């Protein structure tokens, strides 16, 4: 299991044990963390699972695909550390990961 901390826009923290193989989005949705909607269920089709990856972790979460890049390009409040959490696979290497949620996904 990998420990992942999800921090809502208002500062509320959710520290969860997420099974490797799931995505960071699935870890949030299956535990009912507010603020990650994931309308498309992980098809990289909607950009409603936007998170900011803590700076210490941006190397380990991998590169964005062209599809993810162009979806994010049109999302609100995008920062250099923005990712679609459905595109980050959880592994032991991400044990301790911290992600922050934007104010809104829409």
């Amino acid at each position, binding site marked *: 299991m990998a420990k992942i901390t999800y921090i809502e826009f208002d500062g509320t923290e959710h520290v969860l044990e997420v099974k490797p193989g799931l995505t960071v989005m699935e870890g949030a949705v*299956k535990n009912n963390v507010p603020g990650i909607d994931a309308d498309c269920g992980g098809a990289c089709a909607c950009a409603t699972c936007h998170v900011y990856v803590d700076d210490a972790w941006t190397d380990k979460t991998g590169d964005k695909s062209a599809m993810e890049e162009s979806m994010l390009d049109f999302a609100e409040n995008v920062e250099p550390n923005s990712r679609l959490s459905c595109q980050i696979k959880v592994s032991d290497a991400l044990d301790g990961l911290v992600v922050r949620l934007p104010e809104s996904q829409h």
Partner: protein
Amino acid sequence: MSEAVVSDPKAKVVIVGAGHAGGSAAAFLRQYGHEGPIVLIGEEPLLPYQRPPLSKAWLKGEADADSLALKPQEWYAEANVALRLQGVATSLNRGDRTVSLASGEVITYDFLILATGARARELPIPGADLAGVLALRTAADAESLKAALGEGKRLAVVGGGYVGLEAAASARALGAEATIIERESRVLARVACDTLSTFFQDYHGARGVKFELNANVEAFEGENGHVTGVRLKGGEVVACDAALVGVGAHPNVELAQDAGLECTGGIVVDLEARTSDPRVFAIGDVAHRPLPLYERQFRLESVPNALEQAKQAAAAIVGRAGPAPEVPWFWSDQYDLKLQIAGLPFDADSTIVRGDVAAARFAVFHLKGDLVQAVEAVNAPPEFMAGKQLIAKRTPVSKTKLSDPAISMKEVAA
């Protein structure tokens, strides 16, 4: 009703229908701090799950029951959501505020959410009850279909809609043959424009899918109780090992209708997802809902719609502001194609194709005057995302700029 109905975060909420809409309504109620009891009634034996992958990842063996489930089993206990799986609601008594189940159980409610969904339309023709004549709405349906596919098997698909096209693509990926039989002269006739229909038909054709267009299905033929072919008017028979019928769905309005709730093409609701009874909500595929952007009521079958309405109902029940209004949207994955559709082409008077159809990277914009009503985007996320924003903002767009792919969507939408 004369009594004033106020929101009440301690109220008992009963949800009929444990699909994507019903399951999400329970989750949003808890996210929004609802403290009262929640009872979730569903006819299937499974916890609420995602249906879109059934015709895609599930058929190809790339998803399992756990990955499809909206929430794991433990969540329902932790969140104090009482489940009545394989529970069939038979009647609703609005006077007593009770729902009766086939098991004999009678459940009282303060607020009721109807998320009864839609069922596959059946073809009233001979042979429709043969084994191997399948629909695709539930995980059980998908399991039957999956078992019928594989190397060398032959799938006949009756109905050239999204479910049929997705299933045909999955069948091809599994090495099965697929023939799509469509009554109209083109696939996606009811839901997409000509350009998109032609594109998808060509793309599927190039990958070995066969088509029978302008074809009326007369009967399913069978041997020993199992389907062997689909007979068309004119006598031709499309031989098959399984036949998938994907010809649309009917909203499950009976419970609401029998209880005297207003139903016109679905259960009629307002922007809080409330029905004509203020204590009863209806969400998801079954609801006939307002679409403020298009100034009309409509019934949508999509996950984003189910989620938006689940939020509307949950917010109204706990007494918090409703979610921001959304542009309806849809997606479909076939082969290496990602189709994303935003909006609905109501009242459109012109279309603009942007991009390269032959290269499978393009978008079709539907305009009413200089306002974008809808966009259908194939492997074109910027067109989809910017198009969706243009639809929401109702800002006029320059058709000249929109038709020129050299001008970025950022600039078009600016």
